[in-house]
């Protein structure tokens, strides 16, 4: 029996950009949905004009940043400031789509006549899922934003780094990546609901509100106990040793080690050859190791410095102790476990050439995902969509082109 994909036949009109929306719709596409990504060269997705670029050369179709968030989608370019383009977009929604996804500031979809209130008059079964930094309503909703500062608003920067230093900003647009799984989840829940009831709905996500879900305990600790959690390096109340340790080798060679139980501590001691210091009773319990953690970390590092991160990880893991290489970009590409799972999928992009994409972090035993095609170049599927989806004639398409509606 041929393998089927989950969302075959489902159609998504994707007006999103940047991180949250594009990744959510890409996952849906990889699970079988047909997605038309609607964008404009007059205001390109910032990811299209951000590194990493093929051969270090910028170009609207040369960024892997945009590409890896938009594979397996069809792409059409529409200058939605123009009424002709708005009409095309509206036809894609009302005549074709099951789902509309958008990531614009409040008021933008409305200005194009593509807001849920307007659309649902023609398509009451439509599901419209929208995402914005601080939500689509409320006094701060019109503030522009991106995850690289969203991570600060969301409380993560304050909690990262060392207590005696200014905060470290967690890497990347963390809050985008904490939000998009919620978008996928709620969209599928709405699809299940529609399957049963025939009813569509409007769903709105705030990146801030999604992100603070992951910080619920410290926020509730403040509200209940008045305690303000702050950054503490790699300290954990539940484990010691518990940090990243410098290992043998040139450059940044580190291994994370986490010893949670006293039994794991005994295993750890065996691996490092039961040196005399480790037998000191003050290290025998978690309490004792926490009380002498600086000294402990120094002694542990004297051992790790003799081995490569990979040797430290392997020797400890084989003894049942949690340890992991602090992997660089290069090591992530080579990681044997990720490669075993098929995490890195190479697709041949028309301008970038062959390069690495990633699927959702879950595997289905019966309905595997498939990355069907690389991300679209700007306007790559204009003709296909206008002809095959909307059945427009060559003359109609030429009119759009001449008017500049396909930019």
């Amino acid at each position, binding site marked *: 029996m041929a393998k*089927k994909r*989950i*969302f075959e036949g489902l159609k998504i009109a994707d007006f999103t950009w940047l991180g949250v929306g594009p990744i959510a719709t890409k996952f849906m596409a990889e699970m079988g949905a047909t997605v038309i990504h609607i964008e404009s060269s007059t205001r390109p997705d910032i990811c299209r004009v951000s590194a*990493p*670029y093929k051969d270090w050369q910028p170009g609207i179709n040369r960024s892997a940043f945009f590409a890896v968030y938009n594979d397996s989608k069809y792409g059409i370019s529409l200058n939605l400031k123009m009424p002709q383009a708005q009409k095309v977009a509206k036809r894609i929604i009302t005549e074709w789509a099951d789902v509309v996804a958008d990531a614009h500031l409040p008021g933008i979809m409305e200005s194009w006549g593509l807001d849920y209130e307007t659309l649902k008059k023609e398509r009451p079964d439509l599901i419209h899922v929208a995402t914005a930094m601080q*939500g689509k*309503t409320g006094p*701060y909703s019109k*503030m522009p934003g*991106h995850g690289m500062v*969203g991570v600060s*608003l969301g409380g*993560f920067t*304050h909690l990262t*780094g060392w207590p005696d230093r*200014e905060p470290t*900003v967690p*890497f*990347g647009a963390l809050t985008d*990546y*904490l939000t998009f799984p919620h978008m*996928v*989840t709620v969209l*599928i829940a*709405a699809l*299940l609901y529609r*399957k*049963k009831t025939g009813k569509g*709905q409007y769903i709105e996500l*705030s990146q801030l509100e999604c992100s*603070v*879900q992951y*910080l*619920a*305990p*410290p*926020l509730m*600790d403040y509200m*209940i106990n008045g*305690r303000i*959690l702050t950054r503490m390096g*790699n300290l*954990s109340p539940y484990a010691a040793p518990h940090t*990243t340790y410098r290992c043998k080798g040139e450059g940044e060679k*580190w291994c994370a080690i*986490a010893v949670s139980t006293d039994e794991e501590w005994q295993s750890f001691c065996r691996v490092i050859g039961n040196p005399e210091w480790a037998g000191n009773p003050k290290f025998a319990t978690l309490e004792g190791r926490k009380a002498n953690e600086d000294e402990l970390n120094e002694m542990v590092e004297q051992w790790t410095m003799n081995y490569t991160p990979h040797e430290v990880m392997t020797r400890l893991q084989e003894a049942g102790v*949690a340890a992991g*290489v602090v992997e660089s*970009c*290069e090591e*992530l*590409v080579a990681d044997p*476990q990720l490669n075993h799972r098929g*995490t890195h999928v190479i697709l041949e992009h028309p301008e970038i050439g062959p390069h*690495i994409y*990633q699927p*959702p972090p*879950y595997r*289905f*035993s019966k309905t595997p995902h498939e990355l069907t095609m690389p991300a679209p170049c700007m306007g790559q599927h204009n003709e296909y969509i206008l002809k095959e989806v909307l059945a427009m004639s060559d003359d109609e398409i030429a009119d759009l082109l001449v008017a500049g509606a396909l930019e």
Partner: protein
Amino acid sequence: MPDNMKNRGLLSDYRILDLTDYKGIYCGKVLADLGADVIKVEKPWGDVTRNIGPFYKDIVHPDKSIYWWAFNTSKRGITLNIETADGKDMFQRLVRTADIVLESFPPGYLDRLDLGYQALSDINPGIIMTSITPFGQTGPYKDWKADDLVGWAMAGQAYVTGDSDRPPCQVSFPHCYLVAGSHAASGTLAALYYRECSGEGQHVDVSMQESVLWTTLILVQFWDMMKINLFRAGSRRAMGTALFRLAFPCKDGYVGFLIAGGQLASISMPPLVKWMAEEGMLGAFEDKKDWEAKDWTEKVDAWALTQETVDMWEDSLLKFFATKTKAEIYEKAREESIIIYPVSTPEDLAENAQLKARDFYVEVEHPELGETITYMGAPYKMTTDSWNISRRAPLVGEHNQEIYEGELGLSEDEMRLLQEAGII
């Protein structure tokens, strides 16, 4: 369950058995708050997650862990030792009534108990099993352990996080397994959607490492495309040849801001420079006080800026922000559409005006304490109004009687026997 007791929500037709510990609990919470009937199945002495702090009024007690509370809302709870023959039998009876099983045991553990996906699908062919583990069900690392820090390291996050002169570091409230749980909720519902189309259940295999890799921007692509190993630089980030600040000290804390160039600068810089001019603090932006958005797009390429220029600009910004509070900057940013946000502390988030205006936080009754506790509200707002915390997290074994007697029809005597044998 009688209809009037059902959770309202998009998933109110479905029953989920949640065997996970801290590695998977967020998945069940997400689905329970959307209306699913999630039954948390704990060991007779309670789930290990109950030992994770902080605790209500610092009382260390399995029913007072705020961590447990936060991620087990809307679930019911029973205790059951599935390692005993009677416990297994009871679990199989529950599986016949369920749509989904969530678990986070080491790969192979449930198979050894004859409760793996294959065995359960023989009992209930439509069953979906979602497994959340550090590295996935197969592969060279499948049996390895990972706490949050190890996962953070092996997904590439630690390498790029922390001060350059200190060890790579994590976020001090680790959330790797919460991220895995969040993805697990998506994968579970996707499998459920397929079952609604085909009648077939299946096994969903979630890897924490791979889930956290999806939080690393595009580290893999930086190596793949440009052979660059991005590195940790405290609150600064490498873009092109220069390091850019992402957090700036201000009068009473820090604010998040990035000068960048191109489109980002075109949004923020004209109003910000105007504000600096009004206060007589233009500094290095003296010659740019009349620049419009397009000037910043066309004349400033972040990728090509020298460190000297970036430092000079940031120095002027540091001096300016030092005269302002987080709240003043956030408010001005709101008025002028500048991309500057406060570096929020837990206190700032509890008081955040936008969250308050949107009625984000919700009050949940804790009858056992005789009070209500404030929780995080919905991650999504829906016109069907279908997100809801239907109850606080279960106490240890709180719903044993309701489920074993009320739904499986066990007698009081049978219950007592199971209890005495340490099975429930």
